């Protein structure tokens, strides 16, 4: 473009216009920020056409130089504006493209991570989290509920003597009430002296033998009865009992404790009620029912339409039991209650057949 001849003002004006048009067209063609940087130096840099036209100004008269200089600057500034506009447009496009390229299907990640058992493996290893058994979860939750009500948790042997399972509980040998529990006896000692406990009540006896009142405790544990298994009964099952012995404990305290447990464990809207029953180790004795937690008392299949679920037995500790463990019934009184942990788990989980619990089917265990 160098012209050996001194340029005329007209010629220069035409060159500036051409250089500007070409620069603007180049800017518009820039496909990326990097390309735009390169074009920028080409069209308005020190070696650009416009810069070279600037050096040609010297040949013009002062008037012509001033006006040509002004038109070159104006052209540069317009090209510069075009470049900035183009730059911001390219930035938006590039960000859009990067985001699109980085897109991940996170649901795919979750799907890849999940196994049939429901466990999610941690990165770097095939290890999946296992599950606590439904029975354990129920037991822990029951323990926690009673602990929050101020109870301790006591345990004892599963194989017991006749004394702890029956006699100390106000059931001398041949007492007709023994028929309420079908007992499995062990081939140990004299016939029918060593047995598998039919309830966790022996733990109550042991606790009262070794600890003076006040006693506030629950006794969870495994029990045994010579019952043919069916949808609602297992010969090996789990039970939780409670025992309170203190001064001035009343039947109203029993009712209140059961109500407090019921609402605390099942949630608000679930209540309890007592009706008379019989156990040799309590007097007065009762059964307690709770609002059906499945239908909230409306009536459903679980509660046979009654709106209530029979949960367990309870009553005021019989003075004969106190006598057997050396507690003075004139000074102390107390209450006891008990119910099945598996049965409760069954009701809450809507489990149709209790025998499923003993299969240890991994597809079942990992549901909870």
């Amino acid at each position, binding site marked *: 473009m160098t012209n050996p001849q001194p340029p005329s003002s007209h010629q220069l004006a035409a060159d500036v216009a051409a250089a500007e048009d070409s620069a603007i067209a180049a800017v518009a063609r820039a496909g990326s920020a990097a390309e735009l940087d390169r074009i920028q130096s080409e069209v308005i840099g020190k070696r650009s056409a416009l810069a070279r036209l600037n050096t040609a100004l010297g040949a013009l008269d002062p008037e012509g130089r001033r006006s040509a200089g002004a038109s070159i600057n104006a052209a540069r500034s317009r090209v510069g504006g075009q470049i900035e506009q183009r730059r911001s447009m390219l930035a938006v496009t590039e960000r859009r493209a990067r985001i699109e390229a980085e897109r991940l299907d996170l649901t795919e990640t979750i799907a890849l991570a999940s196994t049939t058992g429901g466990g999610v493996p941690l990165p770097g290893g095939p290890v999946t989290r*296992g599950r606590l058994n439904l029975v354990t979860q129920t037991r822990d939750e029951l323990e926690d509920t009673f602990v929050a009500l101020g109870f301790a948790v006591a345990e004892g042997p599963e194989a017991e003597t006749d004394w702890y399972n029956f006699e100390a509980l106000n059931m001398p040998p041949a007492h007709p009430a023994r028929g309420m529990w079908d007992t499995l006896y062990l081939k140990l000692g004299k016939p029918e002296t060593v047995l598998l406990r039919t309830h966790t009540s022996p733990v109550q006896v042991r606790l009262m033998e070794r600890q003076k009142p006040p006693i506030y405790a629950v006794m969870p544990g495994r029990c045994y009865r010579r019952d043919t298994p069916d949808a609602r009964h297992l010969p090996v099952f789990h039970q939780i009992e409670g025992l*309170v012995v203190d001064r001035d404990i*009343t039947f109203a305290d029993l*009712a209140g404790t059961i109500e407090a447990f019921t609402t605390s464990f099942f949630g608000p809207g679930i209540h309890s009620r007592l009706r008379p029953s019989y156990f040799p180790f309590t*007097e007065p004795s009762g059964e307690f029912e709770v609002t059906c937690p499945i239908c909230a008392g409306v009536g459903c299949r679980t509660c046979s339409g009654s709106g209530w679920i029979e949960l367990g037995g309870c009553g005021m500790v019989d003075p004969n039991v106190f006598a057997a463990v050396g507690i003075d019934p004139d000074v102390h*009184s107390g209450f006891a209650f008990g119910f099945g942990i598996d049965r409760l788990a069954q009701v809450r989980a809507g489990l149709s057949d209790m025998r499923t619990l003993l299969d*240890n089917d991994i*597809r079942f265990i990992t549901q909870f």
Partner: protein
Amino acid sequence: MRAPLSWLRDYAPFDADAERLATAFSGLGLVVDGIELVGDDLTGVEVVRILDIRPHPDADRIRLVDVDRGDGQPLQIACGATNMAVGDLVPLATLGTVLPGGMEIARRKMRGEWSNGMLCAPGELGLPEVDGVDGLLVLAPDIAPIGTSLAEALDLRSDVVFDLDITPNRPDALCIAGIARDLAAALHLPFSYPWLSGPAVDGSVPQPTVSVEDPDLCPRFTGTVLTGVEVGPSPPWLARRLTLAGMRPINNVVDVSNYVMLDLGQPTHAYDFEQLSGGGIVVRRAAEGEAVITLDGVTRALAADDCVICDAKSVPVGIAGVMGGAGSETSETTTTVLLEAAYFAPMAIARTGTRLKLNSEARHRFERGIDPEVAGRAIERFVTLLRDAGSPSLRRGSTVDERCEDQVPTPPTVVLRTERVNRLLGTSLGDDVIAALLDSIGFTTHSVGDGVHSVAIPPWRPDSSREVDVIEEVARLHGYHRIQPTMPAGVRTAAGLTGYQRQRRQVREILAGAGLSEAWTTTFLAPGDLERAGLSPHAVEIENPLDRSESILRTSLLPGLLKALRFNVDRQEPEVRLFEIGRVFEPPAGDGVVPEEIETLAAITCGGDADGRLAARIWAVLADALRLEGVAVVAESLAGLHPGRSARIVGPDGPLGVLGEVDPDVSAAYGVPGRVAWLSVDLPHLIGLPRRSLQARPVSRYPASDIDLAFVVPDTSPAAAVSATITTTAGELLESLRLFDAYRGMGGARRSLAFRLRLRSPERTLTDTELAAVREAVIEAVGAYHGGELRR
């Protein structure tokens, strides 16, 4: 105990609906197991007269019968029975009737002849069969006008039957009168016994001799001779009541005996007086070796504590309170009976019944304790009923009542303090309220001062003898639901889980976190299970298992968990990781009588990467999470485990468990494919182990230097031993030691163990000289103690 409402109404005017009555029963502690609505089942069955009987033209065994329904029009019915005659009244199930068995009556053609209904046999109507009669129910000629509904003709009105679950403490509620007494009290209705007008005592009827030799077994025995007895079917209303109450009618003598038992709770027995040698009864202890043939035809061997009823010549004719004998049973030809109404000692009856495994309604009542004073009323009821039930010329002799006052229980009188009632129940009941509640069920109260009553317990409540028992009656009749709940006010000192219980939960969480799910297997094993698992068969046995496959107490969790694996493998779940915490039982040591119980933790896995190493990893996770200190894993060949892949876990005070791989023969015997990892630990021992202290150690701000050393070590040197040597030798500067590779490619009974030692000082940057010294010392020690050579 089934209680028909119509029967209860003999005692009080119950007019509430069934639901209201059921609520009242429940509030009394008489649990309603079921409510049955009966009597609507005979709708559509009518009394008709037979007008004509003629043969069926095309069938030998069917006859055509014309009946009159009251409109004089003959209606043709086809019938297979032969026991009826023209003029008889019989029941007709009319078209559209659904019989109790579910059969629906429709107009049908039988071999070309129409049948417009069905003439019914008693069984088809749900009525008692008449002994010796096969065919239709032929009704008494004057029973009702033709066309009357059968239910009305037989006085079988619709009824409600409550099936009540009577708790063992309430023998008084094992009869209609007792149930009605409670129910009347709850509903504030008057209770009264119906008026009886039995035949007066006839002096010409003989008196039996009654001799009770052992009054401790039989405190009271009454005998009454009845003549003019005609054995035959019971009237329909009586048979119906028994049927509703769940007993099968047999003949009037047996039925009346059952009726009186259900009505008043007094079991009675009628002996054929002619069959009793010597015209009397002896009640005594059985002699060892003596036997009697009971009503069911079985010869029963007696024991010395059994109470037997004998004839006057002391020959046993029945087992007291349990079952009568075959020889003295009443029969169709019996005309004179000796009626027994006795009170037997409950414990004696329970003992004999349990030993002979003989259950009867009588035993059920006697062993719980009947009312010792009800015999008189029962005899009166029996005599009246039997006369009205087909023995119109019945005569009764005077009752011989052998009663030993020392042995007949005397109902106690109890002092009841109002303050005590309210203190135990948490109520504020007044003296008069308490008295009224008790009086309503026959507990007679006398005020003996302010706030004190003397309460006479009625003889039908043997369960009640103490103040607390009477308080229960107050609570029951007041209504449990009316006692306002409160919370115990006492201070609790020992709430919460014990350390053991908290740590047991922690162990569960650690194992679940390591990917194992919790199982619980049954405590029972089958014979052979332990041997199959390679374990000692020495275990506690169950005396009376429900099934032989559940007759052994587990001494290990292995068999049960192997069965659980097998269960899952069979259901296309080949990768299973389980753990269990449960008790195992060792036979008692020394002169102990109860088994030793050990709460045991076990983990088992199959499929995937399961093998002995996985068991070791699980243990490592557990030991690390529990911050165990000073616990070693020592290779050892162990029962049930792969001999080359098993180890014992040993703590500072001895072994506490095992880990490794289940012996392939054992897993194969249990049908589990592939390798099975196994870990078993005595849980209390584990939880009692010493832990690394929670004392904080300062974290050094100086750089660490790692030294990698690979040693070729003979297989006889366990990695744990080499690690221990390195740890000891490297001393205080060793921050951590990690085995990062084990390589066996160089052949021979040796392998390469590559360790990374991280050295760091809390005070300064270590110098090359210091690092070189540690390196040399470690190489030398491993060489000296384990024959290890540095791998170049």
